[in-house]
């Protein structure tokens, strides 16, 4: 758009060189990515078109046969798998917008605070992300415990009987744990994006008389939209692959959370319990496709708003 850009257009060879150099910035990444991600994935996905069979008592070793798309056909018709999928989709519709709104709000509020104040709160807010998962589980089991935990007692003060270990509350229990663990992560990415924006822009808007809320909504949010798309994608992917939290709460409400409660749990069960790695891989691929479609919808939706 500037004069300079127009002037450089005739230099075609120079532009090509520049593009090539630009592309070369991605080379180290692509090389490593190919070796450490693409190769293992292809090796893994190959499993999905085979089937493993035993015979007799099962002692004589196993034979591997080419199965074509049979594992996929079975997966597409697997009621338990799709029930689980439906479950996590419903859950995602609630939890994903919640974590994103909270993370974005937090980043904006942090950005609006005095710098020194922000620095202190930033550490506090990131602490849950630093706590390892196994310890976070112990922490929250204590908080939730109907016998010894503080929350049940707190609600009892108001005459409410709240038990986080019951089947009806299990979604709330898992959702809260997910929000708590992810909050700092989302906040840091969005806050970092806000810091990357040249701040003269806000100053200019303020001089034009824009209110703080309006600056936040009309200037800051559009600037972090790219990051917001990323955190939303990660959030939807993570939620649809829900595994850790239901496994944790399985012990507490085993009558509700079965071994195939979510697609990721079913895949784990097939791979490491049932021992059918072929089928588990096929299910992984199906799950990836569904998650991919969901991500694409989110991506389109959020980017459309931009234009």
């Amino acid at each position, binding site marked *: 758009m500037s004069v300079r850009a127009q002037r450089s257009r005739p230099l075609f060879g120079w532009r090509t060189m520049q593009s090539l150099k630009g592309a070369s910035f991605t080379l180290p990444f692509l090389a490593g990515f190919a070796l450490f991600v693409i190769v293992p994935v292809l090796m893994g996905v190959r499993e999905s078109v085979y089937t493993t069979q035993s015979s007799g008592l099962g002692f004589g070793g196993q034979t591997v046969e080419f199965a074509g798309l049979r594992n996929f056909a079975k997966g597409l018709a697997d009621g338990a798998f799709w029930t689980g999928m439906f479950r996590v989709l419903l859950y995602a519709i609630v939890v994903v917008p919640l974590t994103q709104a909270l993370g974005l709000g937090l980043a904006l509020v942090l950005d609006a605070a005095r710098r020194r104040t922000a620095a202190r709160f930033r550490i506090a807010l990131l602490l849950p992300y630093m706590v390892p998962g196994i310890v976070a589980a112990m922490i929250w089991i204590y908080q939730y415990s109907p016998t010894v935990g503080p929350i049940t007692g707190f609600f009892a003060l108001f005459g409410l009987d709240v038990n986080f270990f019951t089947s009806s509350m299990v979604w709330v229990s898992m959702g809260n744990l997910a929000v708590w663990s992810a909050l700092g992560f989302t906040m840091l990415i969005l806050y970092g994006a806000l810091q990357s924006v040249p701040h003269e822009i806000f100053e200019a808007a303020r001089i034009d008389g824009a209110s703080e809320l309006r600056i936040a909504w009309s200037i800051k949010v559009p600037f972090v939209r790219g990051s917001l798309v990323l955190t939303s994608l990660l959030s939807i992917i993570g939620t649809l692959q829900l595994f850790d939290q239901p496994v944790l709460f399985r012990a507490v409400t*085993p009558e509700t959370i079965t071994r195939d409660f979510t697609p990721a749990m079913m895949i784990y069960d097939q791979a490491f319990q*049932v021992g059918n790695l072929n089928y588990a891989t096929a299910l992984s691929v199906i799950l990836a496709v569904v998650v991919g479609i969901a991500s694409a919808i989110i991506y389109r939706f959020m980017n459309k708003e931009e234009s």
Partner: protein
Amino acid sequence: MIRSRARWATAGLAVTALAGLSACSADASSAGAAGDTEPAGPVTIEVWGWNAETGEQTAEAFNAAQDDVTVKYVLQASNVATQTNFRNATEAGSGVPCLVQGFAPLTTMVVNGWAQDITEQVEGSVDLYNEGALAAAQVDGRYYGLPSGSDGQFLIVNQKTFDKYDVEVPATWDEFVEAGRELGPHGVDITNLAGEDPSILMNLAQQAGAEWFAIEGDQWVVNFTDEKTVAAADVLQPLIDEDLVSNQTFMDKPALYKYFDSGKMASTTTQWWSLTGLQTNLADSGGDWSAHPVPQFADATAPVTPGRTLPSFVPEGCENPGAVVAYTDWLTTPEAIEAGRNAETGAVSFPVQVPDASDYVDAVVPEDFFVDDKAAGEQIVTAQDRVIGKFELGPNYDAWFPELQDQWGKAVAGDITLQEALTAVQEFVAADLDDKGISYTVTE
């Protein structure tokens, strides 16, 4: 699921965990000779286990005690970690060890082609082990595992509670249910059935003499609903129906121990290694407990104790099974047991695989926990003497156990009956065996 598996792993743990020293070099050399060629120097075998405290010191004591075999102990993070790493090593075909602490039931090891047949090597040293340990190491009459002791179950009761309400400690399961009915009106539960842990149902079935899996010729006979299993379910069903038990989860430890400690839980079955933890965490009720044999079924011919284990095994591809057996045989010696003394706690491990463990039981009985320590020690030894050891879990245990957990969780919550739960598991087993191409029949 990890917990129940881990619990059974204990006996396997005892085998590799026991430390020791010296002696029995005669055994070692004869074992070395069991291989076809006499090796020039010492044979080195790699051992995988997760005994962080005494695994390595035991191996070192063994290395110092003889010259034929060198044991290298490779510490694993947990039993699940051992399983993961072993699967991977097998998959990659490199770095497979010679002795692995059992992380799954023996039949699973055989079906996966992991455990080698070591009948020839084990048969020479059967005198060193108790019957339960020998039974547990076999599949279809062949030794695929190293003789590994099972932890015999016994009943601990809160004697103060029983005395307070003047209830007799039950000797049979019928009396157990009756005791539950007597205690119920006082707000006391006879025991705790954790919704995530169906092991008490498996223990009862094993004790009743049920055979969920058996081998007949070239096929498996599957039977989750025979009269023995029904008898086991009939013990628990009225307790659930009449609300005489609690359903505390093992996950919430503070709540669990608080409840155990409150006097509101009259009894629980347990095994020797749980006692330290109970003593540590039951602050108020310490000194109130007494040990008794597990209640028997009224029609039992001789008293038996349920108890299973995950035997250690020698992987396919290990070229020195004789050296491994020499090592595990040595672990039964007093010197070995002494070498495994834990430097932190000063205690030796309880050798559950040997014919007579009574010399070591004192270390197992914690202070200030039982009304009568000596009587408790005797009960623990008795439980070990009577332990069955073997309960065949079939070729697809890893597949059906989570299903049993699901069904058990529903049954304990009162959504379905135990009979329905067992029927559902049996259907699952059949479908899974069909999928895998394994031959079976289901007994009606």
